């Protein structure tokens, strides 16, 4: 079973844990419509492209879902591995792809090893719990 890594804009680092997963190929999709929807101007786009140059990914341009589906078909991949993100646009793409592929989300190194808190609203509710871990190497992980 072959796996394809889809790297997105929230995780542009070769040391991201996603790359530790067994995979055949890793790709980044340059999606103009997505970037327009995110309000990204020229400055940001240049920063992103420059950041991609050194990463172990192939860059393709096009609609993200269509391009990933075509790449997965060509590579006979049945699994898509991607960095975890809170971004609903990216999560929506992963949900759409999960109809044809097994989608696996890989979290980055955490700042603090603290489970999600229900109904989080004000910073100090979080900080009271997080503070000790925040001053611990690797956030207590």
């Amino acid at each position: 079973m072959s796996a394809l890594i889809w790297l997105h804009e929230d995780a542009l680092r070769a040391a991201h844990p996603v790359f530790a997963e067994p995979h055949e190929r890793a790709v980044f999709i340059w999606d103009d419509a997505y970037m327009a929807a995110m309000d990204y101007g020229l400055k940001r786009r240049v920063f992103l492209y420059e950041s991609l140059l050194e990463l172990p990914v192939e860059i393709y341009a096009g609609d993200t879902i269509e391009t990933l589906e075509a790449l997965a078909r060509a590579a006979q991949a049945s699994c898509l591995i991607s960095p975890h993100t809170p971004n609903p646009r990216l999560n929506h793409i992963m949900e759409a792809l999960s109809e044809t592929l097994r989608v696996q989300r890989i979290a980055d190194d955490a700042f603090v090893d603290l489970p999600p808190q229900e109904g989080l609203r004000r910073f100090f509710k979080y900080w009271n719990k997080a503070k000790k871990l925040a001053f611990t190497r690797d956030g207590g992980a």
Partner: protein
Amino acid sequence: MEVQPKTFADRDALIAHVRALSPSLSPEETFVSDTKGGRDAGQALLQNIDPIAYGRSRDYLGGAVSYLSPYIRHGLITLNEARNLALERGPEDGDAKPIEKFIQELAWRDFWQRVYQQNPDWIWHDIEDYKTGFTAEDYADTLPDDIRQAQTDCAAINYFITSLQTTGYLHNHARMYLAAYIVHWRRVKWQAGARFFLAHLLDGDPASNNLSFQWVASTFSNKPYFFNLENLQKYAHPQAPCDAASNQPLSGSYEALAEKLFPYGEPA
């Protein structure tokens, strides 16, 4: 499907390629930041952090801030790495107090990301009502042209707008000043300000940016954030032009400004 190139003769060639791949960009957009993408540039900034000096000076425009935000925003550098290095650079006796501010600011990012994860729909919607004496309908939907063109009646604000547009970066305090000016002085919806920031900031982040805007606006805090000329002069001089004559609308006591900005309002 064609694989896109990863080597270019020079930066101009890369920029031309990015443009060719970006038909949605307006041809009027010409600025590119001097800040370069890539892990090496981020690492160099990371190695420069001075968390103790940061604690003493971060509120000043000339303070010892890290400039790491675009690298953290896009995952080139992690909060974990920045924190671990800050711990190593703390006082030798292990006292965490002098590095607390730096670590707490990293935590603000973690906090906003957690809020975003739980409530993705909060990013563009008022989380609470405005606590300014106005309702959302009293605020304009779009950003006035004089703001977009850095031609407002406040020289410091124009300076911040131009910096944002040319460098893709603003100091935290400058973001607070500019956001407050847009929302409270000009009575523009925070969403319009947030969109303007996202289009220019290299670190523009739906959570950190939009939730901070909501904090300034008071739709995600107990009262609106605003400032006066005296505060600006303390923190933004000499980087921004802060003289009274060219920043008239900002001058006055907090009480007088509150009366002007929030005539029906609640702020204490």
